[in-house]
């Protein structure tokens, strides 16, 4: 189950952060997302990529923490998509496809001519779309 998704700008500024838990752990999720930037920074600055993975946007599992797993995705504009989930065994392919859809949704959201680049995304339809994606992720993964 996905508990949190976030979009972080290329200057590590949060653009969108939404948690999907009932519990009052927004601060904790903020911290998780925030500290996952370390890992992303590290992967971006020390790319061990070669050949086939050169154009890979999916960063894979960033780190496991407590009950969560943090996955990352880096767009070519250095916008980071981050997902925090509780599922312990999840196929990378599922996560990857989730991120693709998430990325597409984000691209649609910032294509809005009224969106100011660098500002936090406030689009409601983006939120709804992400929400439905997150909801559909759980059963899709199990099935």
């Amino acid at each position: 189950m996905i508990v949190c998704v976030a979009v972080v700008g290329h200057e590590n500024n949060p653009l969108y952060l939404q948690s999907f838990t009932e519990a009052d752990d927004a601060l904790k999720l903020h911290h998780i997302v925030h500290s996952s930037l370390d890992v992303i920074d590290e992967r971006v600055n020390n790319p061990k990529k070669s050949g086939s993975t050169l154009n890979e946007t999916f960063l894979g599992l960033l780190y496991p923490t407590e009950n969560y797993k943090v996955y990352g995705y880096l767009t070519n504009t250095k916008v980071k998509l981050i997902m925090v989930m509780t599922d312990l065994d999840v196929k990378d392919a599922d996560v990857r496809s989730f991120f693709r859809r998430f990325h597409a949704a984000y691209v649609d959201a910032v294509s809005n001519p009224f969106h100011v680049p660098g500002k936090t995304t406030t689009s409601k339809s983006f939120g709804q779309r992400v929400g439905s994606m997150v909801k559909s992720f759980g059963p899709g993964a199990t099935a």
Partner: protein
Amino acid sequence: MEPDVSMETGSMIRIAVLPVGGAIPHRQLREYAAMLGRQTRIDLSSISSFYKEHQKSPFAHQPWETGCLRFKYMLGGAPPSPWEDFQSCRKILAVVGLCHCPSSPDLDLVADQFAAACKGYSSALAKRCFAFCPTDSQLEDDGKKRENIILFPPSDRQTQEFHMLTMVQDLAATLLMEFEKWVLRAESTGTILKTPLDSQSSLGSEEVIKAKKRRLGRAQKTIGDYCLLAGSPVDANAHYSTAIELARLTGDVFWHAGALEGSVCALLLDRMDQKDPVLEEEVKYRYYTVIQLYRRSYLQDNAQRVSTVSFELEAALKLARYLCRRELAKEVVELLMGAADGAKSLIDASDRLILYVEIARLFGTLGYQRKAAFFSRQVAQLYLQQDNACAAISAMQVLTMTSNAYHVQSRRANSKPHTSPHELGPSHGDGGKLHPQSVVSLFESQWSTLQMVVLREILMSSVRAGDPLAAWSAAARLLRSFYPLITPAGQSGLASSLAKSAERLPPGTRCADPALPFIRLHSFSLHPSQTDIIKRNPLKKEWWTGSAPSGPFIYTPFSKGGTTNTNKQEMTWIVGEPVQVLVELANPCSFDLIVESIYLSVHSGNFDAFPVSVSLPPNTAKVILLSGIPTKVGPVSIPGCIVHCFGVITEHLFKDVDNLLLGAAQGLVLSDPFRCCGSGKLKNVSIPNISVVPPLPLLVSHAVGGDGATVLYEGEIRDIWISLTNAGTVPVEQAHIALSGKNQDSVVSIAHDTLLSALPLKPGGEVTLPVTLKAWQLSMVDSEIDSSKSSGSTRRISKEGSSPVLVVHYAGPWTHSDQSNNTENSVPPGRRLVVPLNVCVLQGLRFVKARLLSMEIPARITDALPKQLYGDKNPAEVVSRDDSMVKIDPYRGSWELRLLELELSNPTDVVFEVNVSVQLDNRKNEHGMPILNHENADFGYPKTRIDRDYSARVLIPLEHFKLPILDGSFFAKDSRASDAFCSKVSNMAERSAKAELNASINNLISKIKVRWHSGRNSSGELNIKDATQPALQASVMDILLPDPLTFGFRLAKNGATAQINGFPEESIISGDPPSQCVNGSAVKCKGSISAHEMTHMEVLVRNNTKEMIQMSLCVACRDVAGENCTEGNNATVLWAGVLNDIRLEVPPLEEVEHAFSLYFLVPGEYTLQAASVINDATDVLRARARTDSPDEPIFCRGSPFHVHVVGTA
């Protein structure tokens, strides 16, 4: 768990360091401890001299050449660990006392105390007490040779350090020998080693057997530990190998892990210098095994009492520290995250604390600042749970470290590069550019949720820790950065915590972090005396030229000069002259903000700033004026303001707010504090390069009699006295006055000479100049309706800014006497003073209209022609008469009067008196005679008084403007135009003719002066030009030009035409009323005409042109009814001679007479009139007659002459 563990920990000898005796001053204690602390690595080679081999050393492979002992000093000692037997390095193996002799005179007492202190450390194998700075008596006393107390004789630092080194080496040798002893004993007799894991109470038989089996392995492990401590890794390795074998056989998992750990430490010590991947792989492999073993040793049944988790975590941390490199980050992160997850199973809170501290440190080393910050925050939370001041201080310090990662750090941390003024200057020069660093901080500042939490925790912990400054700083940062996210109640709470913190701070405390308000530079309020500093051009006499801003607008004193002038990059301030800077303050919070004082912060040290205090209501912005005085020559930089608010002094940099506003504009920052206070957007004001120059003279002007506007009516002439005072400290040596602004021509004269004669104007000197002003005419454009008056009487007054302006350029001496080092700036600048002549022009008399009136008064016929004025012997008499303006035209013989009627109304509320005068120049005619010989041809008129709201008419006779001769010159253009057939040329000619006509009208009008007086001292002149021009346009020719022919009648005596000289007095009789003749004496009536009598008359025709005129003359006589009396059946007048069609030729400028006689049958009034038709008229005549067709006859009619015929019918 222990902090700061690493793989090498196993080889470190722990030495407790305890202060003994009287209280040691902090500085000394620190110094002694540092001196001791430097000796952590004692080479084996250096201790050989202290080492005595009593028995054969068990450390067979001790590397005496390369090896070393490692000391770890535990300042203040440490409680004994229950795991001492398991890891010998946990034991305190030696105790070192530190004693400051001056504070503990009795060394015996010290020795006792030390011995008592050592009792707590049963494991200590060596004890030393180092006593520093012993007194002489103590040194002498030392003869007793106390055990363990070593006196350090007072000496210089180097010697003392050497002494210390020697003592430590001695200690090391002692320890080494003790280790040997211990090992030998252990090998021979064996030891019983226990850990808390081994159940102590109930030793069942099975367990006793088990323990016996395991004892050997454990002993081997412990011997290995001592080998490690003794700096002999090879020996250690051998013992560990045995121990590992034994532990594996006996299933002693925990000791197996410990031995394995020890073996890794031995391996690393053995290969200290190499770090090859093979070794790394080996270490990694062994350590993962260690971690596995520790995990396996976890026993569920005694988990409540004791847990091996801490060993597992410690091993993980050790491995992580060993691997802690960027390339292996992923592995390290996994280890650390695993360790972090393990925290939950730790029982002891302090263990957890240590774990988090270590994790945070390792993440920090790895470069994972955010993760390090996260764990630091966990540490802080654990500290805060402890609820004591020390823990709170620790929490605060840990949180302060995290603040960097969250970009909420105090400015004090990175204030170092900002303190130098050199740094500040250029960084301000590049105006609105953001520094890349600050951009990042703006971006990251969006993690506001986290940042606020961190700041709140810092605030809370520092309050608890009793650090008011840190609390103030945290509250200030919180309030300043996140006010939009804080509820009004929260904002007030922060404000009160700021105030509370400030109460506990000494007054005048400075803090690096500004709180409120937000301050931005608004503008430099420029006093004109600052703007008008003008570079002197020493080459030119008019030194101010060329340096003043060129262009059409030299200076507009009423423009909003302040903001526009700041675009200039250069600004000059003058020593000793106050300057002002406008700054805008914003309080976006919901409480009243009281700024106790605010003043400009100047780092260059040559500026005295004056503090002001401001109170800002909630959600308001205010522009305030900050002033100061430059004190020394040199550049000035103003990076910001010093604010005393909430009890603490802070510096607010303009640059920060500029960055903030820029960030707000880009949507990076939460909100713009100025915008949310309703203040408008301000363009980025760049701070100009300000330089301070030596004192200059300073002229201050004021109008004598008050600086208020002088109220003048249109056309009023008045002197204004301007007083100029030198308020500077340097004399004015050069000065020049020029005019500028609108309505410059209203300044009639300026007393330049007065100013020049007053130079040099000493400091404090004053000069007063008269300036004569003539109020200008109000036009619709530059006047405004004074609508404050009732709508019925709208009054027009002049608009502001239409007054002329005096521009005074002045300067001091060329060189400063007191400035010897004026190499580059040899010429001090000059200045400009702009003195607006404050004139308020009120509407005065107003023209309603101007009309030209003409009337004719027939002349009375006499035996003489009406006396020509120039022939009059007594012209003064003529002039003196009241009606002196009314003259008989000498050539016309009658009074044909043309009057200019000016209708004036007085819309003002004062009374005007109008006085008309005509100024005539003494023109000469060709004959060299003045036509009108009025010496000063000013005609006085009785004054016309015009009451308020009334109108009146003033008549101006226009009789004296006739030219004597009608010639072609006037029509020169006309005649030429008729010659030319080219329409274009004629068009041009027409235009120029028109211009000439206008010029002559203007000339005419300019001779007429309408002066007015009002009240006691208002007087002026009415501008009638525009009003009268249209009135005169049509008939100017009639006014100016004489008729080509003038006709006159006179009585002839017996046909003789002699001029009568006998009646000089009566030469002008037409002025007398007719009744006078009737009632008067016979003599008086000599010139009168009787009925029934032949009257001889002559008609005189004068040619006023320069050409011969041929004509046919007719003379008509009419009675009062206008009937022709000489014709018809009822003719009442008989005549002799020719009256009609008299052919005459008149030579130019000559007169021709024609005599005839009349016989009046009936007495009464008659009118004689001559008329003629000119034959072959010239162009001039035609033009004069305004006819175009060459065929039209030119008819010339004389003015009527009055004939009074007396007698009885």
